[in-house]
């Protein structure tokens, strides 16, 4: 029997209620009502945010990024993970705490 080693469990992200955003002419403007900071997302970052908020799955996002940036899927996935990490660090997304 093979043993599957997963160093980390799956993570669920959510968008906290104090995060609101609007489409602007040349960016997506995301505001954090708690920290009172505004973030201007442009270019690919804005596209990923848009796809994310439209409810596309992880796998679909990777396909979109790979297609739009002409990247192999492995790099597209790494890019997506980095982006999510960045948004988590800036408070735009939060991780759901996993128990047990």
């Amino acid at each position, binding site marked *: 029997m093979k043993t599957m080693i997963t160093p980390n469990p799956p*993570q*669920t992200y959510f968008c906290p209620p104090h995060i*609101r955003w*609007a489409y*602007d002419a040349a960016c997506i*403007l995301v505001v954090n009502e708690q920290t009172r900071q*505004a973030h201007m997302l442009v270019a690919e970052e804005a596209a990923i945010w848009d796809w994310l908020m439209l409810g596309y799955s*992880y796998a679909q996002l990777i396909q979109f990024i790979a297609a739009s940036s002409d990247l192999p*899927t*492995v790099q597209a996935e790494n890019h997506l993970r980095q982006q999510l990490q960045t948004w988590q660090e800036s408070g735009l997304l939060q991780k759901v705490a996993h128990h047990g």
Partner: protein
Amino acid sequence: MANLAISNVCNLNCPYCFAAAYMSQTIGTARPFITIEAFTQRLDFLERSHISQVRLIGGEPTLHPQFTTLVQLARQRGFTVLVFTHGLVRARPLTCLTTLSPDDCMVLVNMNATRSGSVPDAAETAQREAVIRQLGSRALLGFNIYRPQFNLEPLLALIQKANCHPAIRLGLAQPILDGANVYLHPKQYPAVGRQLAQFARRAAADGVRLEFDCGFVRCMFSDEELALLQEAGADVAWRCNPILDISLDERAIHCFPLTGRVETAVAAQDAPTLRQQLIVQTQVYRRAGIYRECSFCPHKRQGTPPGACTGGCLAQTMRRFRHQNLRFVLPAPTVGQGCQPALLGEIR
């Protein structure tokens, strides 16, 4: 400047009413009118804020059963009085106002307030005009623009006939942030701008000045239209600041359209302190504006005469922002990843 709500009751039904959310919050839960004791505290607040004018709002302030007493209290303490009314004022409060000197009392009459939920009918118009004739130079006519077609000509005639204050206060109907009132969509602003520029010239010929309330934006006027307005002496400005509407339950609200979202407790603070708190609360939204182009607009960033554009009404701007109850599962990375996507699902 701060507005004191003294009545949560109004007997009209204007389709654009931006106080509807404020009034509905208090139905059945609070006293509909301010008490004398609370009003005295509000006057204390104005004094410690070095504000010399009492601005009475509602609902309809003249429906307060002790309206005359409130006005007298304010006058005894040396305040001038400004009343925001729908104009269908009953005899007793009207007598109270007409006994005051025009130097001490101004009454801003909303000329398109109505019971019908549409436009004022003939009876309402006649009653309002009778009230305005009695108010004379105490009356300042106001008009809320909530549709791209409107007619201000009758106001010019009335100003002459009733010897009113020679100005018209113009408001753009703005949306309640979480509400459903009728308001002017920003796409309709340029059409309104064209009409106002033409009308300003007509008004100036009659010696009447146009005054702009909050929410106007620079780009609703062409350069030529703006020049026309300035030539006509109009008070053109791009305002959106915390007005400070003080509610019956002692909240300082940025303005009625933002009831429940941008407010703070009055407590023992003064108006500048409260205003600063509300500015801090809303600062994060100020980068944006009512249009998608606002955040990159030179009128907003650098300012153009007669002052930098604020990007329009904050409630209108904040309505552009949305929140998404997103939950997104990120699979565990496989060993040695870089990654192979676990499963590529079907694309919608």
